[in-house]
């Protein structure tokens, strides 16, 4: 399965007119929408920068996953990618690892795995920084309060 986009591709949004074309195509086919059309729209949505679009895209991808078993393997990658874009790294990792289990030599999946790890590490540090900042602030406030109380006493 060499024909997968790299994660970078997901970061370049389509212009609204293009997305509109995909949406129109998707809606035109109604209930009997084909897998390809659904995917086209979903992929266009995942590439978008707005979170609501990405959520919708992910929903469509999971629909494809559920309804067409022959596309599951590919879909794993897109689900991972979509979750990665949504910053749900736990989910992204889950899907990507599943795919890597099946296809250990998948370059795109390996690439995505590295990117997830990277993101988790960075954001994790930031999170620790924020958390510790909160703790410091709390400590400071507490200290000031205690001190003023002590002074009153």
């Amino acid at each position: 399965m060499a024909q997968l986009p790299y994660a970078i591709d997901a970061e370049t949004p389509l212009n609204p007119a293009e997305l509109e074309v995909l949406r129109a195509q998707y809606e035109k086919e109604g209930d009997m929408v084909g897998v390809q059309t659904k995917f086209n729209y979903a992929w266009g949505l995942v590439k978008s920068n707005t979170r609501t679009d990405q959520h919708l895209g992910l929903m469509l991808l999971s629909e494809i996953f559920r309804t067409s078993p022959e596309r599951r393997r590919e879909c794993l990658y897109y689900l991972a990618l979509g979750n990665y874009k949504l910053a749900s790294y736990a989910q992204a990792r889950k899907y990507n690892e599943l795919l890597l289990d099946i296809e250990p030599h998948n370059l795109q999946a390996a690439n995505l795995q590295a990117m997830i790890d990277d993101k988790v590490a960075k954001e994790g540090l930031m999170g620790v920084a924020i958390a510790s900042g909160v703790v410091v602030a709390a400590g400071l406030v507490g200290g000031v309060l205690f001190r003023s109380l002590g002074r009153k006493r």
Partner: protein
Amino acid sequence: MADPGHRNAFPDPPSSPEDESSVISTRGLEAFGRKVTTTASHLMAPLGDPTGHPHYQTAMSEVSKQLRRPALQRSVFSMARTTPTDLVRSKLSSKEIQSRALSYVPDEMLKNIPEDDNAYSLFQGFQASFPEFVDDTKDGKKHRRRVSRGRKLLEETHTAPDSPHAVHKLRKEKAAMMHQLEMMSIRKNMASSEIREIDNKLANLAGMRRIILERLGGLEQEEALLEHEIIEVESRLEDAQELADEVESIALQTPTKSDDDDVESEGGDTAGFMSQSIYEKLPSVSGTPSRTKKPRNVRRKSMPIRHEHFEPGSMIRSMRAHQDSITALDFDAPFGLMVSAAMDDSVRVWDLNAGRCIGMLEGHTASVRTLQVEDNILATGSMDATIRLWDLSKAHYDPQGSQFGKDDEDDGIAFENPEDQPVDPPAGSMADCPLFTLNSHLAEITALHFRGNVLVSGSADKTIRQWDLERGRCVQTLDVMWAAAQSSALSAGDSTWRPTSHPTDPSADFVGALQVFESALACGTADGMVRLWDLRSGQVHRSLVGHTGPVTCLQFDDVHLVTASLDRSYRIWDLRNGTLSDAWAYTNPITSMMFDTRRIVCAAGEDVVKVYDKLDGRHWDCGAGITEAEEGKTPAVVERVRIRDGYMVEGRRDGMVGVWTC
């Protein structure tokens, strides 16, 4: 105070480099968050309360323990499943939780990931279908996508000397074309796989349709059973009501007696005598309802619609109704009651829904030539010159028919499954059905029709009689020969009685067909004439000339009159101006014809029924001749055909009856 101590004990992660690089697992982080909250609450609530301090201290020490984990490396941290922001979001934002639920994929599906053998990947499909979409925005995505491929070539082109320039250009062109070719093949694959997808969907839908059609059949079966039960309960209720009413009226008539009864109940003998005198009356009263029972007009409460969903021309049922040629048949509604008569002098009543014979109608001493069923009332006209009327709602019939024995006479070969085999109706099942007999005609009855309380009958004695069904008496006799002579005397036109140009078929009925509507009567006779009578004056007010052979069948609605004849044609007349609006001919004489809102069906001496679709303007054949020809069988010629609401019943010369949709 302890305050400074607290402050000192409070860990300050950013200040210590060791802590900054330290890493906490997800679980650690959660615990951390929990501890921060406890700490905060301790700090806020019990200010200055010494009991709070130990708690606070333990909490703090735990926090610091957590944070002072042995120097954890970045690599270890990267093993964390997720980041704090993600964790917070996924737990707190309802919108995120909702979308997570929507895009949730069950684990068993994750385990079931088949080998993929697709000709192209979804992404390739995306790429391939994309150029189509962006034709209007050429400078947009398409350009950008090609750039990576084109850039190298472009650079080379610019730096290259003039001689290889052309080569490069050509090469570039070739690459572009190869790319296009590749895309083309992907698009081709896409199209073919889409077709396959649609085929699968169609197959699925067809399967669903079949299942639902079966369900519909089951529902209608149940509906029919329930309806039958309702009718039974209704009749019981009616009887009970009548009984109760009569008892009440008697009680009202004898109030003093019943009072006496109450008073003297202690005084043994007299009381017994009095009450006995009252009760003696009751049996005679209870006997009356059965005598006074009026012929009920039981209408079906529900209309089966199953046949509308079948493919036109498909067989619903086929049964061996008689051992001899069918001479007449009619049914009241799709999947309702059918009555068939044959040369073997028998008349049978059938439940079309179950395909079972309900009973035999005994009474005629010769074979029945014509019959009509309308709302449970059946009229039969026989060779024995009598017309009999029957009330089919009085039949003792259990739709489930479990207590019936198997019928030895019927071979059952034509039935789809054994449980559909006809069963012998119980002997007395039709005992209550006969209403009365009309016997003024002098020769065999060849045609009859009734509507409401008016029945008209045509006989080989060359007369048409009009009957009042309420009183069961002949109201008027119309002499066809006299009318013909009359009109010839008046106009000397072509409306005289004239022998047909064809050698007259001796077997042809003098009055071939009749239909009545209030005071209008249409009659087709052996001379090929169709006469329209006014029953109020008893005069022919219009004659339709055209058929060159005996008329065998006619039917009219509010605009058109359709007549069929042994001259092999049927004609459609416009009743408003009395002109011929259409005519069709087949290869054999037409023995039976009927139309509903959409189709005209004819039995024209073939093993199929000729159908003319008025809406499509299409002629086609429907019947056993088509389906059984494939199996190498030659079914008998269709003699009689009836159609109502696209539900067609045909009777053949070998006694078989087929039910079809068209």
